[in-house]
């Protein structure tokens, strides 16, 4: 109850502040619309906005799933071998800095205007926190436990599966939570540079280009909502899977 009531209350306060600011400072509506305008847009186009949101949500989760697979694989490789780490990590860091806008032409050339290019951008944006957090987690295993596996002559694979990975899970989840947030950013960027008229990101950008600021903000609102829902789905999953982590820390 409280867990829902508090943020809603806080949100209402924020909306109130927004309302007041827009009124008091006479912010031009083409820059920031008033909350009512946004609300009326939500009411005006419920079906359209739902369809577009659903499209984005699918992109996000598909891309996120792929990013998890790739990210974990990379993290395992990096933390398993110093050579891989030293050779790959800097490249990964550099690669991650490539502006996604710059790969637009490649995207269009390879994929056209479907969902793939957007999923591709989602993956690009969100795999890195997964890699980094997982590597950090895998490396944080206490020396005690590694000594135990060594005394049992455990293979590297078993040590990973039975000790390092479980130990890394809390940090892995931090990575996932960051990644899902970035996945939404990625979906919007993908919809922006990837072309086509699907997705809530497209709605936002198109509405903004047409100075339909109210609609743009309605889209942003829905995007934020989906992002919050996805994030807390992960939080719930974490609580379910890792009770020990909360019980042994304080």
């Amino acid at each position: 109850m409280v867990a829902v009531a508090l943020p809603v209350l806080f949100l209402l306060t924020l909306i109130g502040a927004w309302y007041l600011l827009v009124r008091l400072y006479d912010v031009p509506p083409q820059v920031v619309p008033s909350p009512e305008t946004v609300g009326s847009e939500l009411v005006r186009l419920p079906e359209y906005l739902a369809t577009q949101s659903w499209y984005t949500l699918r992109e996000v989760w598909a891309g996120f799933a792929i990013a998890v697979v790739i990210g974990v694989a990379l993290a395992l490789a990096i933390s398993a071998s110093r050579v891989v780490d030293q050779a790959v990590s800097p490249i990964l860091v550099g690669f991650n800095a490539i502006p996604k806008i710059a790969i637009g032409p490649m995207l269009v050339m390879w994929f056209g205007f479907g969902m793939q290019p957007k999923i591709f951008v989602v993956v690009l944006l969100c795999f890195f926190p997964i890699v980094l957090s997982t590597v950090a987690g895998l490396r944080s295993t206490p020396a005690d436990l590694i000594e135990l596996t060594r005394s049992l002559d455990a293979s590297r694979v078993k040590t990973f599966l039975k000790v390092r990975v479980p130990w890394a899970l809390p940090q892995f989840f931090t990575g996932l939570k960051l990644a899902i947030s970035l996945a939404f950013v990625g979906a919007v960027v993908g919809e922006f540079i990837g072309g086509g008229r699907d997705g809530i990101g497209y709605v936002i950008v198109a509405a903004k280009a047409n100075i339909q600021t109210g609609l743009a903000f309605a889209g942003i609102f829905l995007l934020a909502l989906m992002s919050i829902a996805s994030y807390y789905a992960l939080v719930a999953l974490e609580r379910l899977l890792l009770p020990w982590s909360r019980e042994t820390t304080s």
Partner: protein
Amino acid sequence: MIQLDGVSRTFSGRRGTVQALSGIDLQVDEGEFVAVVGRSGCGKSTLLRLVAGLLEPTGGKVRVNATRREIAMQFQRPALLPWRNVLSNVLFPVEIFGWKRKQHVAKARELLDTAGLAGFEKQMPHELSGGMQQRVSLCRALIQRPKVMLMDEPFSALDALTREELTVELQRIHARERTTTIFVTHSIDEAVLLADRVVVLSPRPGRIAEIVEIGVPRPRSLGQNEHTEELARCSARLHELLMQNTDETITQPAG
């Protein structure tokens, strides 16, 4: 079975160098039970780690005539996996060795029973008392049925009674399986009761001060025994040896 020739071990860090062990010559035969006593910080745990192959000696040679998996090590700290319950912590070596879990569950329960932990199989490590955690780690070492057993103060967190029970159990196991054992302890009584020979380490750098043979037949128990005198003599000798080391100036880590 175990052979140490002039083994020494130095730890060098940013805060200076500590010579933990120096010139250790020791041979442990198959089936032998050797206790190691010595002051805190004299290198007992380091010695076990060297035998277990967890540390490389900085000088000398360590030879153990057993594969890694035939050596079980009980650490000074319980080192339990916090996400596994008691039973599955005990079964951890079974999983690592790729043995059939099913076949060992009964054995694990039996060990937990013996250790007085029946009914706690499903508890998580953080829900146990210190002594209970230590017993879980003992069960984990025993489930391996090792040829060589390295125990680092296995009963330090246990009360006298549990200690006695487990000592009896350990003697039984040793008699049955002829496990070659190195047993680090702070209790002279325990050492005298269990060991064929007791190695006394002098501190910093850890050297072998003397090896005391306990020539008393098994099974032994303290106090109610025809060899009481011999046991008392050994105890006294060990006490004396440990006392001697007090005179030695405690060396500091060389900066």
